[in-house]
C-alpha cells in the first residue's frame, strides 16, 4: 500500500508530543510512540498502565467484562454488584443490537440490574444483598443464566461472588449462575475484563450442550459484538453462502448457542484482541482451529468468505461464495465510484479499540485515504506486531493478576478438525490459521503508531497533521471537532452502521463522504489558523 501523501518525519513529531511531559513520563511514553516500518516491524510498548493524571480513553476491567463481552448476550441477566454508577453507565451505552426470535423471547439487554450497594454493605458485607438480588431476578424472569459482576469495592470488602453464585445456582436448580471478579482496578484496561470474561464464558457455558445441530459448514463467529448491527450483516452473508453459524461471541448471541459452540468445526475471529483466548482454549480442549478474518472492508469481506470456503475445501461452497460476492459487488462499486473522487488523497487517524484501528484502515484504503497515524486503546503488542511476538512479551504484575485457565484436551470431546499438516497447507494458502499478523504490516512507512494515545497527545497530533478525519470514541469527539476536524466514532458509530460486509461498506463510504466534505468545518477556525506556527501541510499533501 503506497502512501498517497508524503509523511513528515516521525521522529521530530514524537519529540513534540512528549516534550511537555515530566522526564519519567516522557521516557515511558516514548516507547509507545513508534514510527512504522512495515518491513521490519518495530516494537511497540503496549498494555502497560496509564500514568495517573494522564487522561486516557481507556476503560476498566468491569467495562471490558460486562460492557463488552457479556453485555450483548440477550438471555443472561447481568447483575452488577456494587454502587449504582457502574451499572448505570453501562446501561445501553454501547449500541450492540440483538434480535430475539420473537418479541416474546427474552431480551434483558434493555435492563440495568444492580445491587445498588449502600454504605452498610461496604461496612458489613454485601453477599446477603447479592443473594436476595439473584433470587429476585430469578423470581421475576426465570432466566437461563444470571451473571454477577464485581465492581471495585467488592473484592476489597471480601464479598465472594463465586461462592455466592455456586450457592444460588444450586439453590435455583434450573439457572446457571456465575460470577466475574472484574473489579475496575484489575489489569491495565478493559482488556483485562475481556480475558476475565472469556475465562468465565469458557468455564461456565461452552460445552454444556452436546447436541449436534444440522449444517454442513458449521462455524462460530468470535469477537464480533454487533455494534450498529454489524453482526446482522455478517450473518446475512454467511447464511446466503450456506454456512451455518452455531454461536456468536457475543453479538446477537444466546446462552444456548454458546453452550453448543464446541460442536462447530471452525472459529472465525473478528476482534483478535478481545477473544483470542477463546479461540486458543477451544482449540486445545475441542480441537477446533481458529482463523483470523475481517468483515470490515469490501475486499476483506470477500477474502474472508473465500477463506472460510477454502478451509472447508468444498467446491460447491467455493462456487456459492463466488456467486454471493458477484451478486453483492455491483451495488458497492456504484457507490464507491461516485464517492471516491471526493475522498481520494484525504487523510485519517484512528485511535480506537483493540482491533478497530486496524480493520477500518481497509475501508479508508478503499476510499483512497491514507492513515497517517493509528493506535489502539487497550491492545497488546501482538495486535500491533503480530502473534509472532507473543513469546517475547514480558509478563508484568498486571497481567499476572488475571487468571490464566489451565485447559487440556477434553477426553471425550477433543476432535482435531484439521491435522497439523492440513493447517500448514491452509496457512500456505494465506489463511491466518491460529494466527494474526497485526496492524503495522498494513500501515505505510513513516506512519506513526501510538498506543494508548493520551488526550494531550491527540490534540497535538491534530495540530501537527491536520488530518481530514479522526476516528476515536465519544470522549474525544467534541475536543477534536472543536479543532475543526470531524471525528468518526468507531466505538458506537455515532448513530450509524452497520459497517461490516458489503452493505456496511456502503454505509461507511457515505458517512465518511458526508463528514470530510461537510462545509461546517470551514466555519470553525482551528487553533493553527490563528497561531503563527508554520504549517506542515505543504510537506505532506501529495
Amino acid at each position, binding site marked *: 500500500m503506497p502512501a498517497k501523501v508524503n509523511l513528515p518525519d516521525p521522529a521530530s513529531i514524537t519529540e513534540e508530543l512528549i516534550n*511537555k*511531559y*515530566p522526564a519519567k513520563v516522557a521516557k515511558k511514553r516514548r516507547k509507545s510512540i513508534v514510527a512504522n516500518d512495515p518491513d521490519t516491524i518495530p516494537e511497540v510498548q503496549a498494555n502497560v*498502565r*496509564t500514568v*495517573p*493524571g*494522564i*487522561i486516557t480513553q481507556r*476503560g*476498566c476491567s468491569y*467495562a471490558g467484562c460486562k460492557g463488552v463481552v457479556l453485555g450483548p448476550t440477550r438471555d443472561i441477566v447481568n*447483575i452488577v454488584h456494587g454502587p*449504582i*454508577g*457502574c451499572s*448505570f*453507565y453501562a*446501561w*445501553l451505552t454501547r449500541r450492540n443490537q440483538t434480535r*430475539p426470535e420473537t*418479541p416474546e423471547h427474552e*431480551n434483558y439487554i434493555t*435492563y*440495568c*440490574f*444492580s*445491587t445498588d450497594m*449502600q*454504605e452498610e454493605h*461496604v461496612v458489613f458485607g454485601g453477599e446477603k*444483598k447479592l443473594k*436476595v*438480588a439473584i433470587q*429476585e*431476578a430469578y*423470581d*421475576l424472569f426465570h432466566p437461563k443464566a444470571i451473571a454477577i459482576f464485581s465492581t*471495585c*469495592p467488592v473484592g*476489597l470488602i471480601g464479598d465472594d461472588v463465586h461462592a455466592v453464585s455456586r450457592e444460588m445456582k444450586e439453590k435455583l436448580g434450573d439457572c446457571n449462575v456465575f460470577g466475574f471478579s472484574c473489579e*475496575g*482496578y484489575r489489569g491495565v484496561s478493559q482488556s483485562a475484563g475481556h480475558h476475565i470474561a472469556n475465562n468465565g464464558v469458557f468455564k461456565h457455558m461452552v460445552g454444556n450442550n452436546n447436541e449436534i445441530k444440522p449444517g454442513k459448514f458449521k462455524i462460530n463467529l468470535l469477537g464480533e459484538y454487533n455494534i450498529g448491527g454489524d453482526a446482522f450483516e455478517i450473518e446475512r452473508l454467511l447464511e446466503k453462502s450456506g454456512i451455518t453459524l452455531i454461536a456468536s461471541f457475543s453479538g446477537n448471541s444466546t446462552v444456548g448457542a454458546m453452550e453448543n459452540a464446541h460442536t462447530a468445526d471452525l472459529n472465525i475471529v473478528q476482534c483478535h484482541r478481545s477473544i483470542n483466548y477463546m479461540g486458543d482454549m477451544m482449540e486445545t480442549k475441542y480441537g477446533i482451529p481458529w482463523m483470523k478474518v475481517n468483515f470490515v472492508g469490501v475486499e476483506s469481506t470477500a477474502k474472508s468468505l473465500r477463506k472460510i470456503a477454502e478451509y472447508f475445501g468444498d467446491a460447491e461452497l467455493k462456487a456459492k461464495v463466488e456467486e454471493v460476492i458477484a451478486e453483492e459487488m455491483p451495488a458497492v462499486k456504484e457507490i464507491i465510484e461516485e464517492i471516491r473522487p471526493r475522498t481520494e488523497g484525504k487523510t485519517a487517524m484512528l485511535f480506537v479499540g483493540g482491533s478497530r484501528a486496524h480493520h477500518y484502515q481497509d475501508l479508508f484504503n478503499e476510499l483512497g485515504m491514507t492513515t497517517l497515524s493509528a493506535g489502539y486503546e487497550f491492545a497488546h503488542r501482538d495486535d500491533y506486531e503480530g502473534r509472532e511476538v507473543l513469546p517475547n512479551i514480558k509478563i508484568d*504484575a*498486571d497481567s499476572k*493478576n488475571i487468571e490464566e485457565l489451565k485447559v487440556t484436551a477434553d477426553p471425550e470431546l477433543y476432535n482435531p478438525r484439521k491435522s497439523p499438516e492440513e493447517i500448514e497447507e491452509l496457512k500456505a494458502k494465506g489463511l491466518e490459521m491460529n494466527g494474526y499478523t497485526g496492524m503495522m504490516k498494513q500501515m505505510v512507512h513513516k506512519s506513526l503508531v501510538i498506543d494508548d494515545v493520551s488526550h494531550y497527545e491527540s490534540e497535538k497530533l491534530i*495540530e501537527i497533521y491536520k488530518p481530514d478525519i479522526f476516528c476515536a*470514541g*465519544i*470522549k*474525544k*469527539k*467534541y475536543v477534536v471537532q*472543536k479543532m*475543526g476536524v470531524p471525528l468518526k466514532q468507531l466505538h458506537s458509530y455515532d448513530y450509524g452502521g452497520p459497517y461490516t460486509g458489503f452493505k456496511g461498506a456502503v454505509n461507511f463510504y457515505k458517512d465518511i463522504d458526508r463528514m470530510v466534505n461537510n462545509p461546517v468545518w470551514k466555519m470553525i*477556525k*482551528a*487553533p493553527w*489558523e*490563528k497561531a503563527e506556527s508554520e504549517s506542515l501541510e505543504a510537506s505532506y499533501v501529495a
Partner: protein
Amino acid sequence: MTTNASTMTAKTATQNACKLCTPLGACLAFRGIEKCVPFLHGSQGCATYIRRYLISHYKEPIDIASSNFNEETAVFGGSHNLKLGLKNVTQQYKPQVIGIATTCLSETIGDDVPMILKDYKAIMGEADLPTMIFASTPSYTGSHIDGFHTAVRSAVQTFATGGAKKNMLNLFSGMISPADIRYLKEILKEFGMPFMLLPDYSQTLDGGPWGEYHRIPPGGTPTSAIADSGSAAASIEFGSTLEAKKSAAGYLEETFGVPRHSMPLPIGIKATDRFFALLEELTEKPMPEKYEDERRRLVDAYADGHKYVFGRKAILYGEEDLVISMAAFLREIGVVPVLCASGGKSGLMKKRMLELIPDLEELEIQVREGVDFVDIENEAKVLKPDFLIGNSKGFTMSRKNELQLIRIGFPIHDRFGGQRLHHLGYKGTQELFDRIVNTVIEYRQNSSPVGYTYI
C-alpha cells in the same frame, strides 16, 4: 417477553436506576469553576464512564483526570498515585484549581485524602500549586445530586473568606442547564447588582469552537468571586431538599453570617414571582420591564393554552428538587402529576411538595423517593398518564407503553441541544409550557382519524 414485574413490590436490588453516582455530580460542579480540572481518586474506569456520560448530554469535551488505581494501590493505598496524578495534571494543564472527588474504591480502602494533600503540598511547596478542592463522594452514599452539592460546598469552604460586607449576592443555582445559568446571569445583570453564581458551567459545558488552543475550556466561576462569597450581602440557594448543613449557602451563613435564602427552583409563574420578589427585596430595585413583559406573555400563553393541558395526567421523574418544582408548575397549569418519582432519598420530598401543593393528597398524587424505572413503569401501567416528563432514561418505558416523553433535565442523550433547554424563570416556563402544549396537540393530531389542521 413476559414478566411478573407488575406484581412486584418492595425490591432489594435496583433495576433501571433513576439516579447516577455521587462523583459524577461532583465532577459536573467542578466544571463550573474557572480553570478547574476535575480529578477522581479511584480507578480510571470511573473517570472514563463519567466523562462518557456527561459528554453524551453536553456534547462538549469533558476532561476528568484519575489517580488510576491498580491492584497494588487498592491494597496499599492511593497516596502515591494521587500525588503523581496531581503532578502530571498540573504539568499538562496548568490549572488554577483541581477538584478532587473520591470514589467508592478510595473510600472503601479509607484513603485520607486531606492528609495526602497536606503531605503533597508540603513536598511540592504550596506557592506554585493549583488550589485543591476536596469532596468526599463515595458512590455508595447518596446520588449524583449529593455529589454536586458536596463539591459546591467544598469549593466555598476552600475559597471563601470573611471580611467587610460587600454589595453583592451569591446565587447557588443547583444542577441546572447551561442555558438556565445564562438566563439567571442575565437577570442578575439586569438588576444591576454584582453577584457570584456557583457553579457556572454555562460556557465550559456549552461553548464554541476553539479558535485558540484551550487546555481547559474558558468560563466558570472565578475563584476570586468565590472568595468574596463570604462577604456577600446574601445568598440565594435553589433546592427544596437541600439542607443548610449540607449546602454552600448554609456554610456561609454559619461561618460568615451571610443570610441564606433557600427556595425551590423557580419553575412556573408563582415560583418565579417568588424569585423576583426576593431579588427586588435584596437589590431594592423593581423587576426590570423586560421580565414584566416575559411574565405577561407567559400569563397570556397560559390562558391561550389551558384547554389543551388542563386535567391531563403526567408522570414526573428525576432529581428530587427538579421534580418538586416541576410538579408545582404542572399544578399551576392544571396538569396532575399523578406520580412524582425520584431515585434520590432525602426523606423530604413529600413534605416539601405539600408546601407547594396543599391538595396533594386530595388529588391522589403519589410521591415516591428511591424508586427505579421499573417501579415507575409499573405505576404507569396503572395510572395511565397522558405523558411522561423527565430525562432520556424514560425513553424505553415511553416507547414500550406508547407514552409521549417530554425531555427535561439531565441526562438527555437521545435528542440534540439538551444543554440549551430552559427550565427556569418566565422564559424557561414559557418554553416548558409550549413544549407540553405542543406534545398534547401533536398526539391529538396524529392519533385523530381526521387530522385537524386548525387546533
